[in-house]
């Protein structure tokens, strides 16, 4: 039964199909990004001649400063990760290690925020961002991004904190450590795996965010990459520079793909930490 040949064949066939469907679109995007001129419009996988023209012109467009957009995205994403991890660790210490009244309710409220549709706060956020003078600034996006990174970070880190043995903390208290020392010296070293996975997920979420970035930033120098790619356009509707779009797509995706593949175990455990135990 186990070793029946048709069963093995079906298994490998299915695996091949799954791999092909998963990776083909990206490979085709890479291939397109190296085509230019009329070769661009030949629907074949291997370009007849390879050119870097699309990548070069991407960085030389004055009205679409793509290099600047990449820097903006990096800056925003790194800040979002740093702030949500810091706040996430302090909050999850309270939620995971100290029992106090209203803890369960608070956790449920945090989870509820993560289910907010982003548009539900769009009008109020628009007003707030204007009021704080953050409108049209890439850095201003750090604030609204907290709405989706923070609840998730707090939730996963709390689950993780709860699992750590009590004895560790008790020993530290006996030695006269305050809560800050306990977090910094006792929990932080143990929390690294969870910090890496939640940090990566927060980074990916901030890197990919589109709705807020599209709405709160109109200045061409301040855009982040998803909006930049969505807005790359040609002289007319029939003149879309697909080569440039694919080159930009590849550049934006490669670092992300690298991160995800390098840390895949951590990311998967981060994704499933909240869900499976729920």
């Amino acid at each position, binding site marked *: 039964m186990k070793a029946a040949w048709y069963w093995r064949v079906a298994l490998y066939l299915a695996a091949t199909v799954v791999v092909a469907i998963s*990776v083909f679109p990206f490979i085709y995007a890479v291939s397109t990004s190296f085509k230019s001129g009329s070769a661009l419009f030949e*629907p074949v996988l291997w370009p007849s001649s390879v050119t870097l023209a699309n990548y070069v012109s991407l960085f030389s467009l004055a009205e679409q400063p793509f290099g600047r957009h990449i820097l903006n995205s990096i800056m925003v994403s790194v800040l979002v990760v740093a702030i949500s991890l810091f706040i996430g660790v302090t*909050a999850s210490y309270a939620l995971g290690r100290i029992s106090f009244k209203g803890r369960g309710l608070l956790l449920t409220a945090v989870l509820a925020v993560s289910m907010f*549709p982003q548009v539900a706060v769009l009008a109020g956020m628009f007003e707030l961002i204007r009021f704080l003078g953050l409108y049209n600034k890439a850095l201003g996006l750090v604030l609204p991004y907290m709405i989706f990174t923070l609840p998730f970070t707090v939730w996963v880190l709390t689950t993780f904190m709860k699992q750590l043995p009590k004895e560790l903390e008790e020993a530290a208290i006996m030695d006269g450590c305050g809560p800050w020392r306990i977090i910094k010296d006792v929990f932080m070293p143990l929390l690294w795996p969870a910090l890496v996975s939640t940090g990566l997920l927060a980074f990916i979420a901030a890197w990919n965010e589109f709705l807020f970035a599209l709405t709160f930033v109109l200045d061409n120098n301040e855009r982040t990459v998803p909006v930049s790619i969505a807005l790359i356009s040609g002289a007319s509707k029939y003149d879309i520079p697909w080569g440039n779009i694919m080159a930009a797509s590849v550049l934006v995706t490669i670092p992300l*793909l690298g991160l995800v593949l390098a840390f895949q175990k951590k990311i998967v455990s981060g994704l499933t930490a909240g869900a499976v135990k*729920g």
Partner: protein
Amino acid sequence: MNSKTRTAWTFLAPMLLVLILVAVWPLGRTIWFSFTDANINDLSATKFVGFENYFGEYGLFANPNYTDGFFASDWGLSILNTLKFSVVSVTLETLMGLGVAMLLNQDFKGRTFVRTAVLVPWAIPTIVSAKMWGWMLHDQFGIINQWLVDFGLIADKIAWTAQPEYALWTVVAVDVWKTTPFMALLILAALQTLPKDCYEAAEVDGVHPLRVFWKVTLPLIRPALMVAVIFRLLDALRVFDLIYVLTSNNNSTISMSGFVRREMVDNGYMGYGSAASTALFLIIGLCTVAAIKLSRMKLGED
């Protein structure tokens, strides 16, 4: 208040402050705006109009101008599109995710490689996948049209993202491609926690594998499956970027989030748009409560 409780609230303070600032306050303001005639270009002229945006002459519901019925209006259409998109894509993602998870749970050479490859669609930013598929599905130069014509499956090339009868299903297909990995990984994690011994027992007793799947595997992974489905459903109900980029937000595919943004930002009707977003918020809230009740999930304290 004892010192423990005080420490707890001190450490919670930054999170509470930020969440109030970015979630509670803007949500409250949005709900307030939904009762006003606010325009995005001049917020100082905002006047209170009561339920006008919801049930008034030009409101979302019970609008006398909806001569062809509620679901022919832009708002009604966006609700229908969102529901169709959510139900169909989440169903397909669950079934295919289950299939891929079962595959990855088998023992075969190159399994790690397949699992890595499956992660690729998930790792690609939504905007990029929308552009990538937009290019592959291009009406004249797209490789998919080329293949379909070459294999004789279609006579003429199809404008997948522009023709109203295909556009929404094209969006569903791209979403399924992108999100099935997420489902598969969550289901795989659940599959790997299952005890091996009942499968060995079933094999000794000669129980048919399909029967084992229905009677053992499915009931055991049901809780994890429900959580994954709920997460995905909530995500699907607020879909925006994929549709906005892939089909330019036209009427045949516009989602509720897309409708809100169009009214609020493109047309400037902040009050009316806020009413739509508040309605969306309530719909998603109701769905969440219903789903949690249905699956009897326990949140918070476990």
